[in-house]
């Protein structure tokens, strides 16, 4: 009998060894290939169950993780709400992350290399790793002014500090409430997300960074810059300003928005042409400068490339192979020229900063969970867009736009403001976009701003002044006060 029992014992040993070998494979050798499968929610849940770091604006957390009693352990709350949604983005269990939540995820989640020391300390203390905090460059007053100004409208505002590239305001309207995408109720989150995605007003679109518009007359600054750089004109030089301009090589005629001559005579100074936003003058100037010089100048301001703020912006475009008529139209910001609000803010900031393009950025510093500074962003030069003299000339002309031209609504008592209005024609039948870009004070500029209102209203150049300039004024006032 014992012989049989021994044999039974041997088969039991084989069974247990098979189990042990299989477990060793599952838990050690092949573990990664199994845990990385999409059906496994653990890695995601683990990240979501960590104490995620704050997103801070001027010593106030606009996004913070609050401890809860459920499996996800922490609830992400956005005190910034819809006003800051274009900045923070959201961090959803179901839909992943956007905005700073996504761009700075490794820091916020605590998995960044710079947080290694903190992770080890936490591990030794038997606690879960925590996330670091991200302090933003946003000026809360400017952000609030922009948000107030855009209320009830569709559009975007970007404000920059010209000398550094710090983003002072970044607003998209209409917006969404990121709090409703982070609640720990999958059904509610799904319902809200779907509703936002179906909304024709596209509340979840990050307009200032990713929506491109024809820049309209604001692009005349680029054309003027190209002409000044080429030495073709000076601000005081007389330029043609006819009532209509026969587009070269085309049967079409370009008219002024004034429905006649821009001024009393057939020629006016360049400064005057910019002040009254004379279409024919800049179309003719664009034709003289040529497509290549225009494109080169546009590229020097950041067109045909993108910005990482750290979210990646959409690329603003200057058309690739325009004919002469198309070049003339491009010179006044029509045809296929496409620009984001961020891009136009960069144009204004570069002129304000003596022709230097600074890389725009949102993250001022990264803090460890114990609030020691891990990284401080230093402003970086992207490139020189125009010579200092050109920038000065452009600034002078822009000041006249506000002081006695189309941009009167941007005036601030006691402070010299430089700016440029724009009204961009869109598809036949829909209303044009209203633009204003500018900066203040003219001497030692502290803020550059771009405002765009989609399908804002009247076809006249005044709509840029009527709709966009007041918002720009309030944003600049908020920064300068």
């Amino acid at each position, binding site marked *: 009998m014992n012989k049989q029992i021994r044999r039974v014992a041997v088969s*039991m040993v084989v069974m247990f060894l098979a189990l042990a070998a299989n*477990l060793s494979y599952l838990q050690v050798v092949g573990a990664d290939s199994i*845990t990385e499968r999409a059906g496994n929610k653990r890695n995601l849940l683990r990240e979501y169950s960590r104490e995620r770091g704050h997103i801070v604006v001027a010593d106030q957390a606009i996004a913070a993780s609050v401890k*809860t009693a459920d499996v996800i352990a922490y609830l992400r709350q956005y005190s910034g709400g819809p006003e800051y949604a274009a900045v923070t983005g959201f961090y959803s269990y179901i839909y992943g992350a956007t905005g700073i939540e996504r761009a700075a995820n490794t820091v916020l989640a605590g998995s960044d290399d710079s947080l290694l020391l903190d992770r080890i300390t936490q591990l030794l203390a038997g606690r879960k790793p925590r996330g670091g905090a991200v302090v933003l460059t946003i000026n809360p007053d400017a952000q609030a002014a922009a948000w107030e100004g855009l209320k009830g409208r569709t559009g975007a505002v970007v404000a920059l500090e010209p000398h550094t590239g710090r983003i002072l305001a970044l607003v998209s309207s209409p917006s969404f409430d990121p709090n409703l995408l982070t609640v720990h109720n999958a059904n509610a989150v799904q319902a809200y997300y779907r509703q936002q995605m179906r909304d024709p007003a596209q509340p979840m679109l990050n307009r200032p960074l990713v929506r491109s518009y024809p820049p309209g007359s604001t692009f005349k600054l680029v054309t003027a810059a190209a002409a000044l750089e080429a030495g073709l004109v000076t601000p005081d030089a007389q330029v043609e300003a006819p009532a209509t301009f026969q587009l070269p090589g085309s049967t079409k005629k370009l008219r002024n928005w004034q429905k006649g001559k821009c001024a009393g005579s057939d020629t006016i100074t360049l400064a005057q042409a910019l002040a009254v936003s004379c279409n024919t003058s800049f179309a003719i100037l664009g034709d003289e400068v040529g497509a290549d010089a225009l494109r080169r100048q546009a590229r020097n301001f950041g067109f045909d490339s993108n910005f990482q703020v750290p979210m990646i912006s959409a690329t603003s475009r200057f058309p690739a192979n325009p004919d002469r008529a198309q070049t003339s139209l491009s010179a006044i910001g029509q045809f296929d020229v496409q620009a984001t609000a961020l891009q136009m803010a960069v144009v204004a900031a570069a002129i304000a900063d003596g022709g230097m393009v600074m890389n725009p950025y949102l993250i001022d510093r990264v803090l460890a969970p114990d609030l020691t500074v891990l990284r401080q962003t230093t402003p970086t030069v992207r490139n020189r867009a125009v010579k200092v003299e050109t920038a000065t000339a452009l600034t002078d002309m822009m000041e006249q736009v506000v002081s006695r031209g189309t941009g009167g609504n941007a005036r601030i008592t006691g402070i010299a403001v430089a700016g440029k209005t724009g009204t961009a024609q869109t598809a036949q039948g829909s209303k044009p976009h209203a633009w204003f870009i500018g900066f203040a004070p003219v001497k030692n500029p502290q803020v550059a701003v771009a405002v765009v209102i989609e399908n804002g209203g009247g076809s006249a150049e005044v709509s840029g002044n009527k709709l966009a300039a007041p918002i720009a004024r309030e944003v600049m006032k908020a920064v300068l006060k």
Partner: protein
Amino acid sequence: MQLPVNPELLGRRWRRQEAFLLSAVVVMMAVGLAAVDLSTVEHIQATSIRVFASVAVCAVIIAITMRMRARYADPFISPIALMLLGIGLIQIHRLDIAEQIQAITTAQPVPTSRAPMQALWAVIGVLALAAVLMAVREHRRLQRLTWTITLAGLAMLLLPLVPGLGRTIRGATLWVSIGGFSIQPAETAKVLLTIGFSAYLTRYGRALALLRARVAGIAVPRPRDFIPLLLIWLVSLGVLILQRDLGTSLLFFGLFVVVLYASTGQRLWAILGLAMFLTGSMIGWLLFSHVQVRVDLWANPFRGDGTSQVALGLYGIADGGLFGSGLGQGFPALVPFAESDFIFASISEELGLAGSIACLLLYALLVQRGLRTAMQLRDTFGSLLAMSLATVIALQTFVVIGGVTRLIPLTGLTTPFLSYGGSSLASNFIVIALLLRLSHAAREPRPEFKQMTFTTGPLPTTSPDEQTQAFTPVSDPS
């Protein structure tokens, strides 16, 4: 020259060892439950204290009963069983917390805790263990009840098929509902049939071993000797087809084949059994969708969105890695039936390979103690019974853990001592009681030996029976 050891002292030493190991398990319970509570809700819960008290009560009952009724039994068997029970209880408690937290989050009604219920069942199981040790003073008496026990076992096995009694849960008809309570009679049948098979084959094994007929020059058993094997095969198929319970079917047939082999010593029976098992499996696979589904899930667990039961269990096991997430720090609630069929997956997740291998070693050690007892015993019935009991534990462990870890297709069976389930727990404690009874019989010093160490005068002339009674240990003086 070594002095002969006083067997009284030997028995006492074993019980001391046992008491020490049982206390170690009780300490482990305190540490484990506290670890779960502190890493989840951050305070010690009242249910933890109740669970801990229940396990302590179990340990005390076992220690006392052993001193009274099985003082020479192996000192490792009961602590291993209690330890497995404890690991299961800690994990069930941990899952209770996970489910309650989830219910609170989603504003669902908070489910009742299962750990205190399981702990209550553990006390009932240990009382059943004590009762068996009290009632069955001599294992050979069970042999007289061969037919009663076998028939009772078969009846229990088929009980869920009685209309009005049986309840189908998750596609398998293996529960019987009595007054609101659901019990799994297959677990009771397991114990009864293990005794039945051993008793039957003790009596007829020799006859089956004789190969009297010849087919094409090869010695084979007589046709009538096939009847029992055929009968068990049909019953197993019946369980598979009518109750859709693959696990139980596999367990019983496997057990019968092993006992048949051990009692006859004929490899032919083992080969025949294996052939019939494969035939039965093929029939099941070809004809029944529930068998096909299980095999498909085994072959492709990650098919589709990768959220099949098997896949969800594997994610947990794999995520555990070498040392696991730590008690209370994993996500075992993501695994379906984490407290019952898949408890091994949730243990593997939170305790890692270290914990899962430790559990395997506990089972292996328990089986080894059983097989060792089988080899020590001098009577065929005792020997076969000890081996059968060890085999049942080993087979059940292999089938369920193998299923959860995708070594073999998943079949529904409880993990002995670990899984949530009262009838399963009680039955397993009865298995332990029988093993302890057999171990005591195997290790108890023979009367002559006792005589030598206790008397200095000439050998008494009383009969051996009277001697045994004369030296039946009285209650321990300590």
